[in-house]
């Protein structure tokens, strides 16, 4: 009976075969032998958890199918198999970052990346992107806070150092950027307290936003507030909450911009750092108030 190569995930060293009504998984882990699947549900589960590409080619012999799948898989996997020769730079998507960049950025990258990979939840290409994109804004940030241009590179380096030393809370690009600016802000606080300068009021901006969100939440039914209290955290994005609570951009953006200008940080940081936690706290406060005693 002929055998159909239904789909292949070369990067995983796996392929789905069909022989009559039977589904078989051909797998590198199993030494290129086939494992019978229990039915279409198993095949569906495999398909939905892999980067499979549909093939639909028929073979007379199982060995021919195995030889083709093996060749395709090894082509993809070979560069990754030798740990000595396979640093992250071999990942295909990383190659575009080898284009010439400014010296500052290249130095920053090489300085921080080795350390970053160890426990980073994010792909290296994204880390490169963040470093490239954020060195400039960070420098400007410190300059706005009144540091001399000669001091700034060392301060930026300290921020990245602290960022990569503790990967807690890096969920995605936004969280990484937020953490970077939070660290910058903390570093600034440490330094301004040494210089006896009053720190800017991040707390005040936080309170204002919480009050604003609280007023809107107060008008919502109990169960919706309860859902928001449970679900709203850093994972629920600013934009989503903005829409769920029907805030118009005109209501929020000027406040965010004003807050950002006051404390010399990116408006994006305020969105991510303050808005969702503020929303959650406001929802929890309303629930506590409404709870029957």
């Amino acid at each position, binding site marked *: 009976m002929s055998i159909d190569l*239904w789909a292949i995930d070369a990067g995983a*060293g796996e392929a789905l075969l069909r022989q009559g009504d039977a589904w078989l998984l051909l797998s590198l882990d199993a030494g290129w032998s086939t494992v019978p699947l229990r039915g*279409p549900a198993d095949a569906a589960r495999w398909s939905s958890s892999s*980067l499979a590409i*549909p093939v639909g080619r028929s073979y007379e012999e199982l060995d021919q199918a195995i030889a083709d799948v093996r060749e395709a898989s090894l082509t993809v996997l070979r560069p990754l198999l030798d740990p000595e020769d396979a640093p992250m730079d071999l990942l295909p998507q990383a190659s575009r970052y080898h284009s010439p960049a400014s010296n500052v950025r290249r130095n920053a990258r090489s300085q921080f990346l080795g350390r970053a990979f160890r426990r980073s939840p994010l792909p290296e290409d994204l880390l490169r992107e963040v470093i490239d994109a954020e060195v400039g804004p960070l420098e400007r940030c410190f300059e706005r806070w009144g540091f001399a241009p000669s001091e700034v590179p060392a301060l930026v380096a300290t921020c990245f150092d602290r960022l990569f030393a503790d990967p807690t809370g890096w969920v995605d690009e936004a969280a990484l950027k937020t953490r970077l600016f939070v660290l910058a802000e903390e570093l600034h606080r440490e330094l301004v307290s040494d210089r006896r300068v009053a720190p800017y009021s991040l707390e005040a901006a936080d309170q204002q936003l919480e009050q604003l969100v609280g007023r809107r939440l107060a008008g919502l039914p109990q169960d*919706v507030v309860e859902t928001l209290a*449970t*679900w709203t955290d850093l994972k629920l*994005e600013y*934009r989503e909450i903005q829409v769920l609570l029907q805030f118009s951009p005109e209501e929020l953006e000027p406040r965010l911009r004003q807050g950002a200008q006051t404390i010399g940080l990116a408006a994006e940081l305020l969105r991510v750092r303050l808005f969702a936690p503020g929303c959650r706290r406001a929802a929890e406060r309303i629930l506590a108030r409404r709870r029957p005693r």
Partner: protein
Amino acid sequence: MRRESGFGKTSEKAFRILTLDLMKTSLLKNIDSRRGVRRLRTFGLVLSRRRALADKAREVSEKLIAAGGGNVLRGFKSALAGGKASINMSMAKLIRFLDTGQWFNVYEAVNRETGLKGKALEREVILRLGEFGPPRVKIDRLFHFPRSVHYASLNLGGPGPWARYDICCVILDLGHWTPSYTCFSGDTLRAGFDQKGNLAVARESLLERFAAGEDLGHLALVQHEAFLGAHPFCIDLGRVRRLLEGEDTMIELHLFGKVTRDKIREVRLPQAPYERLRELVRQLDRNPGSTARELDSARVFRALLGRLDRAEIPFVVCGDS
């Protein structure tokens, strides 16, 4: 008069009103916002059924206690309390996960590759999955899952439902998703669909097996009442583990949002494949130039160990479930 708090019809209605209102705003055209609404709707769905599940769990508990099974019940709850999330995958998939930093579901993978979003992305996923596309999409729609959902399973210390091919059991920090995850008693695809991929059971009976992560204990208790009743004095932890990590009897977890490398707490390999791989690595060391296809898995295993070492992720071997 203020409405009383309740998760029944009130919740459904509130969500309908909220969603309808949102549909009128132009901001909802933003896909991120839709994802947020979907995620809230998933949670609304489990909240609306929460009280009924808690009542059933109470009934089961009372019955067990009346039959002298109080200690069994406490043991079962204690076993569940130590549960973690796990995803079983092949060695090469784990290498990909470690290299890219992220575990992609089918939507994320296709989006990453094609840049498609919204309906176009759904169409492409259905095309890719062929005859398996509609069941998967039906499940996602039934539970209002956003596209950021990742399927995992509850792990009680074993190698997970490894099913002879997904040999690496990746243990994840469930605390990251708590309480924002949901669970299902069994494998949604196996439980819901027949050999031809048609919905084989009533929608209601699928929903009965669906709960919020916080209610996982209630769900497990209700679904495994007979198993618990068969234990006269105390629980057998090995049997509980085999039950809840079994291919058909597992507790499926639905994690929303990204699954990233830093959430990995441990990687486990069942004893039998580990022994086989260790022997193959020995053979490879004796004959490094060999092109025998059996040794491919040894090369991948060695590369995987290197990656885990670099990322400082504990790698352990454990007995089969």
